[in-house]
């Protein structure tokens, strides 16, 4: 018995860790098919497809979801473009204050969110924009905290890029613009895409900073937080499951592409 256990210890521990990680996710998927007996019940009372068929039964939830998606896409777009440009500047151009800029870019990541959120609120109010709190202030806040992550990701990708590749492109008759679009950009692109995905999930997820700067608007995390006090609709689990499937699809596609590429080579 002990010998049997000793041989399988690593496997069992591994399975334990996997269970620890995946049980909460499994609960979300399971609950998306739940038919609760009462609004305030946290138990699985019966199987139904009703939640999936009527995702927007609670219009407020879908409204909050729509807001989060809009903000997520816009914040990702702006932060990725600005952050990529900043990343290039920090690696490729020597300017006064470059080293301090490199250091300061970490500050928004290191600072506690509650500090960032409250100081941003103070700033908006002090600037006389307290009446304007809402979509635009949320967007500004999200771009702000996503930016650092994009800069850091793009910068490290670019710093790892061998600059003789660009010299080789120039040597092979590529103009500076062609060198950028045919060599530099494709090689940095995985870093940019990674940064964009990270930005979106940071933005979609954010509660603390958003809560402080949202005025009368409600994002999806804020809606869920509010709903838990009165009984959360089961459709929240449907949204959670869809998000999960989406992330899985991204990962699996990435893996398939690289595997097919590898197989084509052999």
């Amino acid at each position, binding site marked *: 018995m002990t010998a049997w256990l000793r041989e399988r210890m690593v496997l069992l521990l591994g399975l334990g860790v996997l269970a620890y990680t995946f049980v909460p996710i499994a609960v979300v998927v399971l609950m998306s098919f739940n038919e609760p007996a009462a609004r305030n019940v946290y138990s699985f009372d019966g199987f139904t497809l009703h939640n999936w068929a009527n995702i927007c039964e609670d219009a407020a939830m879908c409204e909050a979801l729509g807001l989060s998606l809009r903000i997520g896409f816009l914040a990702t777009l702006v932060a990725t473009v600005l952050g990529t440009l900043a990343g290039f500047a920090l690696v490729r151009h020597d300017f006064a204050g470059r080293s301090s800029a490199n250091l300061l870019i970490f500050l928004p990541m290191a600072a506690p969110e509650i500090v960032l959120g409250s100081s941003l609120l103070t700033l908006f109010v002090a600037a006389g924009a307290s009446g304007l709190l809402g979509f635009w202030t949320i967007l500004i806040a999200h771009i702000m905290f996503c930016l650092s992550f994009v800069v850091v990701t793009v910068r490290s990708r670019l710093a790892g890029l061998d600059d003789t590749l660009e010299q080789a492109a120039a*040597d092979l008759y*590529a103009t500076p613009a062609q060198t950028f679009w045919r060599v530099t950009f494709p090689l940095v692109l995985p870093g940019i895409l990674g940064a964009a995905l990270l930005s979106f999930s940071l933005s979609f997820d954010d509660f603390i900073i958003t809560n402080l700067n949202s005025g009368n608007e409600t994002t999806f995390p804020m809606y869920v937080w509010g709903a838990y006090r009165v009984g959360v609709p089961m459709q929240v689990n449907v949204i959670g499951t869809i998000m999960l499937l989406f992330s899985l699809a991204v990962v699996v596609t990435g893996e398939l592409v690289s595997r097919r590429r590898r197989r084509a080579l052999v």
Partner: protein
Amino acid sequence: MPPSADTAATGAPAPAAPDAGPGGSDGGLRLSSLTKRYANGFTAVHDLDLDVPRGSFIALLGPSGCGKTTTLRMVAGLEVPTSGRITLAGQDITDRRAHQRPVNTVFQNYALFPHLDIYENVAFGLRRRKVRDVESKVRAMLELVELDSQARKRPAQLSGGQQQRVALARALINEPEVLLLDEPLGALDLKLRRSMQIEIKRIQVEVGLTFMHVTHDQEEAMTMADTVAVMNGGVIEQLGAPAELYENPRSTFVANFLGQSNLIEGRVLSRSADVTTLDMHGITVSVPTARTHTDGDRGWIGIRPEKVLIGEEGADLDAPGNTVPGGVVSDVSFVGVSTQYLVRMPWGQELQVFSQNTGRTRMFTVGEKVELSWRPEYAFCLDINQDAAAGVDDGETR
């Protein structure tokens, strides 16, 4: 191979060069008073003049920091010269940017594009210049370097030697006026390096392009190039065919960097048109005047170790030679094809002697008294003011 129309069309309008000198007019590469001084004051290349005829294979040989790579990068357009001009195929290209020059480079680390397959790597230059028949040209080039079966692989899937050939193919396919090779064999193991040396030389002869090769490996330079320029401290110490450089070095640096040399101090006794006689620590020796590269009354008498014969005391080694008695063997290393001796001379200096193992002479042992001899025509004489140890370590560290 004549310059095709698409080779000339490198994107930018080619400025006419009315001031092309005699070196430029034959279509070769000409560097005039080329200097590169960095912002920190370091002069990498100093007032360098060099003519490379079209279709020739030149090697820039020297220790690291001698300016050979900087010179190559200035030709490629990757470094901007501080002063001086670069003329190629009759045109002044000094102010043209890298992508506007009919020059291609094989980089030291190959610099293959990792996101493109082998085919697209090789096609890169053709596509940028919008050349037609990319398909057939790339196929032919991949065949030349024997990589036609690997066309759809990525660089990371290939071995070092294969990557090296891709880098060569990617540059060659553009039929540049000059192909630059920046220590392209440094990362390969010895055996592969030797076969690639022969391979590159074969391709150069086949395509007939001008090659400029930068290396710190004297054997590589001598094996591959028609002409070797030995560089040291930002200047060319000596330029010539490999055999000429080896047999008749003009400076102690060249004498030591290319192979090994015994350099013995001597005082000039007389000078005629043919022969210069010197007093070498009490022994009279002669050196051809054509190989005496000093005007002073003293000089370094140089002789290569394999040109020195070794024999027992009083032996009749080689009648017309300079005979140097009184040596004592202080070290013997048997290396198979030859035996290498160190012989301590009466004036305290140890001379190197390489003796071929022909079987005609016996081996000597440490402590034996021996006599040395060499034919005067193999000796050379250098400026006494030069450092006798210049280039010694540089030549040995690979």
